[in-house]
């Protein structure tokens, strides 16, 4: 339940940051999204923090490389609860 809620919240963020109709899945990562580079990755993190009201640590910022990891982390931080 809560994971699905997180996907629903993440999808519009991904679409605005990467300017595409991307559909989120657990394995989705930078290699499959044309505009996902180190720059847009930072924008993604900034937007997730701003829109979901969470704060990521330095390590978390550096490590989040696919959608599945992000959703797990956000769940631990109480998003979607």
């Amino acid at each position, binding site marked *: 339940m809560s994971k699905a809620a997180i996907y629903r919240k993440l999808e519009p963020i991904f679409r605005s940051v990467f300017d595409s109709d991307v559909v989120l899945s657990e394995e989705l990562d930078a290699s499959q999204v044309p505009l996902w580079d180190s720059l847009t990755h930072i*924008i993604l993190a900034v937007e997730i923090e701003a829109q979901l009201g969470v704060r990521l640590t330095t390590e978390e910022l550096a490590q989040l490389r696919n959608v599945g990891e992000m959703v797990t982390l956000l769940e631990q931080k109480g998003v979607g609860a």
Partner: protein
Amino acid sequence: MTQELASLLARYAQAGSLRELVACVRDFAAQDAPQLSGSPKIRLALTGNYSTQFIAKGFPLAMAARHIGMDLYESPYSHWRIDLLDAGSALYRFAPTHIVLALTSIELAYGALRSTQAVISAIVAAVEAALQVSEAHVLVTLPEPLAEELSDCSGSYAWRHAVGAGLRTALASSRVSLVDIEPLVRAAGASAWFDDRFYDTSKIPFHPDRTPALLGRLADVLAAIVTARCKLVVTDLDDTLWGGRVGDDGWDGLDLDPAGSGRHFLRMQFFLKSLQAKGVLLAIASKNNPDPVREAFAKRPEMMLQLDDFAAAEIHWEPKSTSLARILDRLKLSTAGVVFLDDNPVERAEVRSRFPEIQIPELPQDPAQRVAALIATGLFELRAATDESRTRNRMYAQNAERDSALQVAGNIDQFLRELDMVMEVRGIEQARERVLELIHKTNQFNLTTRRYSWSDLAALVQGGFAQCYRLKDKFGDNGIISVVAVAGADGADATIDLWLMSCRVLGRKVEEAILADVAARARALGARRLIGEYIPTAKNELVRDLYPRLGFTESGRRDGSVHYELPLQDPHVPAGVDFIRTVERSSTIERE
């Protein structure tokens, strides 16, 4: 500019986050060959000691929003010393016209250089190399505050200021702009600016959403360099730098009351003073006699500007465009980056007619709104000051003293023709209050300064006439601007007992038109000579030579006053001027 580009630029102006900025950049790149024809184009090299890729991505858009085209070279991460010290570097091969050296305190303070002196030397060496190797203008960001400054007494404040002071001293060149970004940190607030996580992961020394603000600041400074927005401000005095007219109100009657409306004039002086501190030259173009102006500056302690703050001063009654021409000639400046300030729309138009390329902001009627309106023009975004530029005003002032004034012939008649002036003539009883007000207040253009009461006036003009004159032009209505009373036109002589005029319309040949009207009336009453009288006062020096200038000859002196006469036979009858249409009105008008 296309509709699409215009709306994109509007969206960019509102971008407050990195996501919004990058979205605008994407749309800008998607436009085929953005239309900036006729705009200046620069070749910008961007280098620094942190990750500047966000700024680089936004630069073409940020400059386009400022009507400047650009090509960009982006130095590899943290290559600033290599790229600037090596004369054969890729940066120099790009042949930049402008170089931005973006530096963060985080790397400077904790990196390899660290000590104040080592940091200063490294930056100075790199910038000096750039000045030698290239012809580029170099823009350097001064070290921003470190987060520690706010929370402890670690000495980072002293470190930053020592570095800043060292750079300001060593890099005092007109080709270097030092940009202090501390105001951005302050405007954003510490909690919104500082974010170590992004420096640690991506070498971005501030929260990424602060990128639009920093980019905007850098672009503003670059635009100011490219378009030389403001290097000289030529300003009016009366009702611009102080409230009132010094010629009429006297030095002690000027409004400079900091607790009242005078505050807004003090604001204007403070604003100009701070421009001067940034190296902008100031000059005066005022229609006044020089003595009351000198007195006002000398005797009013509220003045924030002093006469010697001005590199040149043209204080006389000639057209302001002539003053402008002389000022530019004396200061050896072109019209680029020259701003003219005047509260009077007619003066602004007169200067504009001769110098269309000079920046002439529309000053709001309300003095309270003026400084804000000036700032909003963006004309005053300036590069950092150097000691050299700070002393420039004084230097220019000395040059101006040495140089003799050169007469510049302007085409003033052409301008006056375009004003479409209409002068309405009325009997004084049709504007009684205004006529009395003028009689009692006018000091400068007042030949006899007789402060008549209404009954005095009525008695005086038995057998003569008294008229008032209203002037309209394409900018609007100047109201009743002159009063003339002529006594004893019953015999051969008609005497101009009273003639006064508002200084606001001086230099427009209105007095010639008035004289023609007066002469025609006197002749119609049978007069064969017109007699003029000048009674000198402390304030009416301005009209000392009025009668001779209008064709009268001196006929005698009595008790300090001078008498003149003009025969009213052809060819002496004054013809007036063909570009002022004189019409007779008999309707009463309200007090204006």
